[in-house]
């Protein structure tokens, strides 16, 4: 949920996450935009495959890793851009 009182956000844009469209505003991070849109689940943990999402928002915990153009980036440190294609992408252990 956005707090819009007395605030003007950046330009509205559309980006995708795992192929689905999401509306956001320039200045927002990918992690927060998805969180706000009811999509906190960004990836699965490598060993047990459990759902994970943003946690520290400081670029420390590494829980919000997503894939953009084959590169692993932190969603909380990545600003939304119009047309950005984001995918979750955790690599799993073979031997569980």
């Amino acid at each position, binding site marked *: 949920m956005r707090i819009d009182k007395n605030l003007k956000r950046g330009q509205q844009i559309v980006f995708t996450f795992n192929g689905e469209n999401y509306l956001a505003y320039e200045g927002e991070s990918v992690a927060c935009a998805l969180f706000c849109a009811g999509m906190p689940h960004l990836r699965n943990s*490598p060993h047990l495959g459990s759902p994970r999402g943003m946690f520290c928002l400081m670029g420390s915990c590494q829980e919000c890793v997503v894939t953009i153009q084959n590169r692993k980036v932190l969603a909380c440190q990545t600003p939304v851009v119009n047309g950005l294609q984001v995918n979750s992408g955790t690599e799993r252990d*073979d*031997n569980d």
Partner: protein
Amino acid sequence: MISADGNVFDTAVIGAGVMGCSTAFHLAQGGMKVAIIDRGLLCREASGVNAGTLTLHMTRASLVPYAIEAWKMWMSAEQWLGAGVLATHAPGLTLAFTEQECTMLEERAAARREFGAKIDILTAAQAFKKEPGLNSKLLKAACCDIDGFATAYLTGRAFRYGLCRQSVEIFEKSPVVAIDRRNGLFEIVTQNAGKLLARRVVLAGGVWIEPMLAWFGVHIPIKTLVNQLIVTERIRPVMRTVMSIANGLLSLKQFGNGTVLIGGGWQGIGNRENNETEAIPENLIGNLRLARFVIPDLSEARIARIWLGLEAETADAMPIIGDVPGVDRAYVVGSAHSGYTSGPFMGKIIAQHILGLQPSMPLFNPARLL
């Protein structure tokens, strides 16, 4: 902590890396009452932090037969030791990207074939079939089926289990201060475990063998190499073989859990006196550039951890395994250069020697280095 009733150990092994642990294990299995002593914890130095490469490509040619035996031991550790290190069998490729490297490749393969390694030379096309992710600039490769990797940091836990099963007495965090002779026995003075008495002593201290030999007034220089290692986060499968480059400066493998380990002997800063190591950024970058060049898909991988380990090297880059020159019933085992690969077998043969049996393969006389 002398065996409280003044019991004497048949052998005390000083240094609990893979060589020392394997020696202690095999001595105990042969019926001896064994103590193993380390100033730290089991297998936490080189044996716990190396790249875990179980390869013949980078083993010295004349050590190939030893490495083959050791490879079998790693692969079957659950059986003989009782616990394993996730040793995984994978083919090993050594690669050439320049004409000079091609020449080195052929030479190295030939030298190892002479000692029993089955190494085939592959064209680039054949190499791409085995390893599709390779840089298209590859000229030639050498392939050996007997290759693979272990997870080094599991080694201490595995040997702890095995040694306990053989009733070896383990003295960790017990630095040895001095060794005296008392009534024909060795009296080993430790910092935290009191004095131990033993009929025989084995020096298995890796890079610290030089100061250990000095306890007996024997002087053999041991060079300390400071190796850098890098591991990535888990990534999708981008390689299936264990890779090296003909010039010997890259080791590359991907574990079952998806992490990729990058090594090859790039040096950092450190010394054996204070164990403080530090990576040299330019050498990290060089190592990573090689890795990314060989498997371009690694570009997207993020590095998760960097660490360093100390590796021992003698003047002729061959092991010292045998009797300590001029000292009765004192033995030394170590400095095998790529010692992790052959470690379990080296421990076995020195144990055979100490037990009075004929070692399965010849030892490496320390006296040659005096």
